[in-house]
């Protein structure tokens, strides 16, 4: 009987949401539709033109993040950005959609507030007009980014046509050394297997390393699944997940919560479930990562050097490496730790959660930002910001010479006033080092929050473990390893 065939978590969630299935296409039901200002206006406009309504406004939640200035969110000087923000507010009012606007205590980067408010729950299907929707997979939700036409489709029908993706199990094994974060794990994984290795797949992250990760770390991991080309990333929900969700605003409460936990436990992959592809990634020898090129797969250990394009066998890859080095203004063989930075950005849907800020603050405490470096901390949401302020993290950053900003996407994509000038380098905790991503001609190096903090202090890349070792010598064993529990 097919019902007894062991299934993966992906298959279970997918099958639970199938409305119609044809030979090659599936009409999937969507449980949560997250909306932001940049990829939605054309969708709402088309709905209006075709006289359609939003089918399930109560399953749709909106916020403003991409365009928001992080010095003063209420002073949007760019008139086009202002119109886009206002348009979202108007659309939400017209169509009856809940909106965490700039005045709301819940406002923040859409992929940070979803989990924080308990909108994101295991077993849900979640979409958003944003590729980093893969973040929500950390909870065992099937979550993926869609284009504006699909946003319109979900608004109108609460469903989406999809081809069934293949499944890829990524087993992460070994022992992480101190100072090696989830960011380093995902950068290392993409460097090993390439930026296209997940194309057509939903990736499930498993293994003891993933089980030992906090929710914040799992979100960082899943967030960058799209940088490997995967449609979505998944982590099986467990006690860590349930603890995180308990008491969140939109999460079920009391007896309902316990009933849901029982359901959520049942969606994990069955013993013996078959995946289309499996890889095992051992992180024991992994060091903190720094990208040297113009895609997230171009990263090396911090003790490494900028590679020589001649070392690539494939001519297309070789040319890509040459173009990347020309854009980045780097010579082959340069030690990573000799690359200076002028900007440091700690923020984005990848690394702007409370734990990211705690880790960065631990490195920064009692130190000063190097002369000539402009360093920004942009909390991922109002709640993260408030919590960081309560914990004294703001004071640590400000005392060190960091700017402490209001929540938003900020310098990750520079659609707002935060950007990196041409030719200058940024150590960034964001997810993309594409040409021009942080500003035309800007040179982005992707790193973890701790590595970004260390670069801000040193004025160049440095192995954060050197700073942590100094701390441990000074402070004794008080703070333990770089991992938080």
């Amino acid at each position, binding site marked *: 009987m097919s019902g007894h065939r062991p299934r993966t978590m992906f298959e279970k969630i997918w099958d639970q949401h199938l409305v119609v299935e044809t*030979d090659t296409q599936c009409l999937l039901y969507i449980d949560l539709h997250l909306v932001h200002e940049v990829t939605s206006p054309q969708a709402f406009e088309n709905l209006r033109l075709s006289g359609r309504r939003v089918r399930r406004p109560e399953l*749709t939640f909106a916020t403003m993040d991409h365009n928001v200035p992080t010095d003063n969110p209420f002073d949007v000087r760019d008139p086009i950005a202002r119109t*886009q923000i206002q348009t979202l507010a108007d659309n939400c009012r017209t169509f009856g959609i809940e909106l965490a606007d700039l005045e709301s205590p819940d406002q923040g980067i859409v992929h940070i507030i979803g989990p924080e408010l308990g909108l994101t729950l295991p077993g849900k299907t979640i979409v958003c007009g944003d590729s980093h929707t893969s973040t929500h997979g950390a909870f065992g939700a099937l979550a993926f980014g869609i284009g504006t036409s699909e946003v319109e489709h979900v608004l109108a029908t609460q469903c989406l046509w999809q081809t069934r993706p293949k499944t890829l199990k990524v087993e992460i094994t070994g022992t992480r050394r101190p100072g090696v974060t989830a960011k380093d794990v995902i950068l290392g994984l993409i460097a090993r297997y390439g930026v296209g290795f997940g194309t057509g797949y939903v990736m499930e992250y498993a293994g003891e390393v993933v089980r030992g990760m906090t929710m914040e770390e799992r979100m960082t991991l899943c967030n960058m699944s799209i940088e490997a*080309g995967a449609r979505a990333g998944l982590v099986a929900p467990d006690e860590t997940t349930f603890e995180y969700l308990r*008491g969140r605003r939109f999460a079920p409460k009391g007896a309902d919560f316990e009933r849901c936990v029982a359901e959520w436990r049942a969606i994990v992959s069955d013993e013996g479930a078959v995946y289309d592809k499996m890889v095992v990634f051992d992180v024991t020898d992994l060091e903190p990562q720094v990208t040297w090129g113009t895609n997230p797969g171009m990263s090396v250990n911090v003790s490494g050097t900028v590679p020589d394009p001649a070392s690539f066998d494939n001519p297309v890859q070789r040319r*890509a490496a040459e173009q990347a080095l020309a854009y980045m203004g780097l010579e082959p063989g340069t030690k990573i730790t000799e690359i200076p930075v002028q900007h440091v950005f700690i923020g984005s849907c990848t690394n702007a959660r409370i734990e990211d800020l705690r880790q960065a603050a631990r490195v920064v405490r009692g130190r000063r930002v190097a002369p000539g470096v402009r360093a920004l901390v942009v909390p991922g949401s109002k709640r993260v910001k408030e919590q960081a302020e309560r914990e004294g993290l703001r004071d640590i950053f400000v005392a060190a010479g960091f700017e402490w900003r209001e929540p938003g996407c900020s310098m990750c994509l520079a659609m707002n006033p935060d950007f990196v000038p041409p030719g200058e380098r940024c150590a960034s905790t964001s997810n*993309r080092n594409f040409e*021009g991503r942080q500003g035309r001609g800007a040179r982005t190096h992707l790193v973890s929050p701790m590595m970004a903090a260390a670069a801000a202090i040193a004025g160049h890349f440095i192995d954060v473990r050197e700073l942590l070792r100094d701390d441990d010598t000074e402070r004794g064993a008080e703070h333990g390893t770089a991992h938080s529990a």
Partner: protein
Amino acid sequence: MQPFRRHTGLVAPLDRVNVDTDQMIPKQFCKLLTREGYGRFLFYDWRYLPGEKPNPEFELNQPRYQGASILLTRANFGCGSSREHAPWGVADYGFRVLIAPSFADIFYNNCFKNGLLPITLPDEQVDELFRRTYAHEGYRLTVDLEQQTIADEQGLVLTFEIDPFRKYCLLNGLDDIGLTLQHEDKIRAFEEKHPVTPVQYDEVDMWSPERAAD
């Protein structure tokens, strides 16, 4: 949506791997409220020198590729951001067909919503098309969606795979919302057996009476 049946056009090469959607339409042009007019911004940073002067170094600016409607490129085309502004730009520039060894998922889906046909071919065939495009000025291809063939004027004929549902929609220029709503009864039946908690502030309070006890 404009139907796609058969198209003959000039081929332009973009010999780069992993071309991302940030590169197609940089973020400063994603703030508009319309779907039109993005062709001017396509590949902006590569295409223009400061002051919007065409960059003579950029492949698509060469006189021989003006008026091209078929873009030949490399693997993982369209990776990165989900912005549909990218295929809006590609289509508005004048392209109707994209040929590459692979496409990123979201971009690939977005193409079909905008009357663009993305064709995946094996590396060797893409290499051969690059050779022919460089070798023959004015190199043209005829793409027949019905037959799933690509042909040049020297007798080369290649076949390609495409999902039948996508092919049907593209051939007929179908708006798939209309198509989906034909399944209204099934959607409604699904909703009845699949309750989802509303994500609205007043609803969440109503919905969880135990909340006061928490």
